């Protein structure tokens, strides 16, 4: 009888609320914002997990151990030695990454095989497989402990946040130079209609992922890419954005900044116009300034003359 009631108790307390319980236990230490350790390379790594953010994330109910459990990361029992071998499906992808990253991503791939398959074809995955430590994996775009869906306005994959998420890498000159990718993409996006319309509240206006896709992003030279010249027209027409528009229309949006080499005529006209603007407005303000001054002087003189006359 005693064993039976213990079992019942274990079932009642143990199975359903287990995840929540164990999370609360972990967070008794890890909710300290200053908790950190120095890793083997001498880098300070935060061990802080913000409880409200984790409990608000899509993985709240999974609990800490769903990802950290079997792997025993950190000082919780000499973790690194106990890592299971990586799955053959993603081992090649992860072989150049540091051990902790391998573990983290193996966790994502374990539960999300479809997304893994999609991602495997992308230019980002190609770079990761070649040994890039810059190219993004799951957590670089989705975050780690605070992952939420794109409906959450704070999520890095919310359409309003996507440009900033992409820009966190694509605006970095040194990083992009390694892959011969221009950082103009961010600047040109922000100066064009899509970004501006979104800033003034058009929730349908395109962001990076609207045209480039998400998990399977490919460079424009790849024939399968949504932004390959052969496919752009279809990409513009998707989701009812620009249906029935011609190839010339589709080819007109390019992430290029006019320069002496690219569209020199646009570059020239832009600068001539800017010069004209300074000239015209400068003359205008000078004229107004001198005109006001002259009038004041004339008034003062007239007043003085009137005084002297009497």
């Amino acid at each position, binding site marked *: 009888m005693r064993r039976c009631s213990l079992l019942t108790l274990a079932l009642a307390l143990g199975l359903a609320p287990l995840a929540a319980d164990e999370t609360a236990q972990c967070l008794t230490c890890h909710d300290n914002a200053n908790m950190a350790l120095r890793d083997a390379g001498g880098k300070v790594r935060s061990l802080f997990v913000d409880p409200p953010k984790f409990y608000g994330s899509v993985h709240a109910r999974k609990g800490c151990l769903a990802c950290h459990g079997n792997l025993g990361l950190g000082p919780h029992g000499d973790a690194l030695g106990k890592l299971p071998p990586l799955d053959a499906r993603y081992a090649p992808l992860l072989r150049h990454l540091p051990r902790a990253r391998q573990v983290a991503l193996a966790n994502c791939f374990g539960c999300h095989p479809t997304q893994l398959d999609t991602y495997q074809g992308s230019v980002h995955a190609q770079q990761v497989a070649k040994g890039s430590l810059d190219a993004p994996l799951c957590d670089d775009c989705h975050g780690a402990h605070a992952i939420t869906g794109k409906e959450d306005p704070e999520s890095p994959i919310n359409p309003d946040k996507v440009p900033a998420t992409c820009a966190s890498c694509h605006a970095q000159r040194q990083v992009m130079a390694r892959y011969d990718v221009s950082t103009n993409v961010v600047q040109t996006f*922000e100066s064009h*209609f899509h*970004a*501006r*319309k979104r*800033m*003034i*509240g*058009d929730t349908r*206006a395109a962001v990076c992922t609207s045209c480039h896709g998400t998990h399977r992003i490919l460079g424009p030279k790849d024939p399968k890419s949504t932004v390959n010249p052969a496919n752009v027209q279809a990409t513009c027409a998707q989701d009812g954005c620009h249906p029935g*528009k*011609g190839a*010339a*229309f589709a*080819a*007109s949006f*390019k992430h290029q900044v*006019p320069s002496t080499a690219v*569209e020199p*005529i*646009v570059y020239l*006209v*832009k600068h001539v*116009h*800017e010069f*004209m*603007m300074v000239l*015209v*407005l400068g003359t*205008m*303000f000078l*004229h*107004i300034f*001198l*005109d006001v*001054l*002259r*009038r004041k*002087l004339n008034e003062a003189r007239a007043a003085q003359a009137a005084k002297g006359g009497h």
Partner: protein
Amino acid sequence: MKTREVQRWDRSQVRQHQLLVASVLLLVLTGMPLRYADTRPAQSIAQSLGGASGLALLHRIGALGLIFCFLWHLCYLARRVLRRSFRPSTLPCLKDFADAWHLALYLVGLRPTEPRYDRYSFLEKFDYWAATGGSVLMITTGLVLWFPDWANRIVGRTGFDLAFNLHSLESVLAALFLLIGHVYHVHLAGGLLPFNMVWLTGRMTEQEYREHHPVDWERTHSPGSEPKDADDEPEPLP
């Protein structure tokens, strides 16, 4: 005693100018929020005018107003030419350059008096031609942006990018020039406060007119002057 007035503009000219003012103000109000979309004021203007789609619609209404105004003015000029009442008073001439130099010297105190202007001063002519040129530029580039599919087939990507850049740059130049420069020197300057009434009534007081346009006044009012032009005896305003 009632102040004597001069009919400077006829009814059509007053109406053309009023439509131009309304269209340009609407275009500036609905265009600038897109150019400066990353600023708070732009976002609140956009919000109060129906968001991005509201702005787009109002901007196109303004555009139709400007296009109509431009065509109206062309028809008006054509009618004046056909009725032989056209006077090239807005055409630039050599005196304008001399007047500009004269004004510059006057403003820095090197000449004692202001230039004596004809019917339109060189500044007013500049405004007229700047508005004309600006309208042609804004209408053409605006149509390219309004109909990007057709425009790209005709002018190509470079033409489209050119239109985009010019529309955006010229808008700022035109808005600042009209709202500050034009308003200052035709309305505020010269003691015409609160403003020059010509844009509302077509009329100016005789005293103001003689002061600001002495050459024209003397030509039309000196004894034995040439017969009056049609726009000296315009249709009265209602």
